[in-house]
């Protein structure tokens, strides 16, 4: 078990009377890649800015290695930030930008020169020392912003949607770069994004947030395979979200048909939410599955076919490498292990809180 580096305790923050974070608790371990994931307005950036020191929480504490740093200003914190829009200093060249933090700390010229060339090598921009930052591409500027942050040897690097402004291909390359950087530097990364694919690719731990609450926290596999509530299931990846009735342990009724599952402890005759991932829906000959339906849409996606199957009034989203033309009658079968059962939220408020908070 690694040590806890940052501990957010009972953080509450509202802006102009609107609650952004409500009693948030979050622990980040040393040398972890943690992603705060959620839709815009979920409080993920505010959380990051509270760790960075740019926002003071209304209530609660920020603990860093056991010390309360809640009231410490950003320039005194052992963290550095990579900003969404890079925030490079336009009046300085690349080397001066990277040197900024070190010069403030009064490091020697030789030390600074070595650090600059080390950092530029690390972000694959060797020899860019004397370029003007305004002449660089978005991807290059982002690398300089990362280099500028890491030369200060922060214990934690905060990244606020750093890839948001880049195009798809570059974004994917940078994802691998960031993983490599994190492994080479051996420091903690706290990463904010609304892009679930980024989160799944890079993170050790994903924190799914919505409306100021943590919906679920876990490894990418946990979050994807075992979403704790309908919000997480819906937000991470595509999914078929159905109303169901728990008949008894390991048996759930969906759309009038009974599916075997592996979940227990939901009681008998309890309404539940049922999530089935599109790649977990098997299409078989009619009559061989649990329910029958007709293919209503077919799109070729490259890796797989994306189909919609109308069965008992529900449009099932199906990903399959096999192709079933529109109009084909099919049977739908789901492996019990691939059916995810979740408690239904009682009201809207709880919908936001999610089941995870009640566990």
């Amino acid at each position, binding site marked *: 078990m690694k040590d806890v580096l940052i501990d957010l305790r009972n953080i509450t923050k509202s802006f102009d009377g609107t609650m952004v974070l409500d009693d948030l608790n979050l622990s980040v371990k040393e040398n972890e890649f943690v992603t705060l994931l959620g839709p815009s307005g979920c409080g993920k950036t505010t959380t990051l800015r509270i760790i*960075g*020191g*740019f926002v003071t929480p209304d209530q609660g504490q920020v603990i860093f290695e056991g010390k309360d740093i809640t009231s410490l*200003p*950003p*320039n005194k914190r052992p*963290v*550095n*930030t990579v*900003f*969404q*829009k890079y*925030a*490079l*200093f*336009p*009046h*300085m*060249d690349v080397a*001066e930008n990277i040197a*900024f*933090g070190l*010069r*403030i*700390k009064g490091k020697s010229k030789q030390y600074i020169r070595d650090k600059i060339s080390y950092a530029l090598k690390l972000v694959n921009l060797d020899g860019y020392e004397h370029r003007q930052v305004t002449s660089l591409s978005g991807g290059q500027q982002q690398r300089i912003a990362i280099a*500028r*942050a890491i030369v*200060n040897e922060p214990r934690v690097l905060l990244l606020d949607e750093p890839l948001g402004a880049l195009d798809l291909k570059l974004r994917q390359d940078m994802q691998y770069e960031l993983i490599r950087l994190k492994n080479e530097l051996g420091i903690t990364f706290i990463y904010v994004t609304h892009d679930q694919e980024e989160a799944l690719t890079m993170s050790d731990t994903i924190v799914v947030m919505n409306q100021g609450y943590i919906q679920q926290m876990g490894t990418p596999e946990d979050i994807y395979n075992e979403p704790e509530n309908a919000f997480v299931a819906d937000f991470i990846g595509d999914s078929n979200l159905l109303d169901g009735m728990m008949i008894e342990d390991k048996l759930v009724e969906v759309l009038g048909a009974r599916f075997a599952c592996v979940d227990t402890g939901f009681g008998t005759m309890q309404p539940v939410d049922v999530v089935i991932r599109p790649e977990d829906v098997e299409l078989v000959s009619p009559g061989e599955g649990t329910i029958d339906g007709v293919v209503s849409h077919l799109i070729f996606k490259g890796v797989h076919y994306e189909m919609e199957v109308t069965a008992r009034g529900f449009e099932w989203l199906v990903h399959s490498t096999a192709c079933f033309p529109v109009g084909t009658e099919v049977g739908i079968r789901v492996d019990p292990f691939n059916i995810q059962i979740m408690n239904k939220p009682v009201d809207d408020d709880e919908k936001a809180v999610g089941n995870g908070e009640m566990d």
Partner: protein
Amino acid sequence: MKWTRKLLAGPYLIWMAGFILIPLGLIFYYGLTDSSGAFTLENIMAITDPQRANSLWRALKLALISTVICLAAAYPLAMILKRIAKNRSSLIVFIFVLPMWMNFLLRTMAWQVLLDRNGVINNVLGFFHLPRLNIINTQTAIIFGMVYNFLPFMVLPLYNVLMKIGNDVVEAAYDLGATKVQTFFHVILPLSVPGIISGITMVFVPALTTFVISNLLGGGMILLIGNVIEQEFTFTSNWHLGSGLSLVLMVFILISMALIAKYDKEGEGGAF
């Protein structure tokens, strides 16, 4: 297509020629000739006359002092405006610029009334049995007038340039360990240099060449180079001498602009 585009530039070319280049040429012609039309440097060398040299020196001094006061007053104001909400700061800028909507002469004459020995300010001071101010018809009064009239020209460019500096850059400096003071000197100040330059230019040049402010608030006793040149055109009708002195003044303006531009280039990136 190309032809019609060129045609669009026509009015501006005519304007440039008719109202800028030809008058400038005439100033050069008058400045470098005597009344018989023969070439002479006499009008230029006339600046060496102690009284005229003094008026130029005085004008440079007062313009410089006014510019420094304007900069010192406007920069903190612009910093405060940057911090407060955009709609409120726009209103405050609007109020600061409001006097510019009124006639320049009227505004300066108002200062005459305010600063007069029996003026508003002295009446108020007298009412409280405080010592009276005796600044009308002094260089101090002229500086008052210059600062009052030209302050908006300093506020506007500074406000514009400071508003353009993104909050993220300031936060980045804090994040990298800079204190508020370090952030100001290493990030905000260097990034605001273009605004400082245009502010200085827009205050210093009109302050250096003014003759109205010195006429009204100096009581005709304190001559600036602008007054000397004006008199050559109005009272003595010596256009040759007036043009010659104008050329000298122009040289001084060019020198000061060159100095500022040089500082600007050195200032770029020279944050440390």
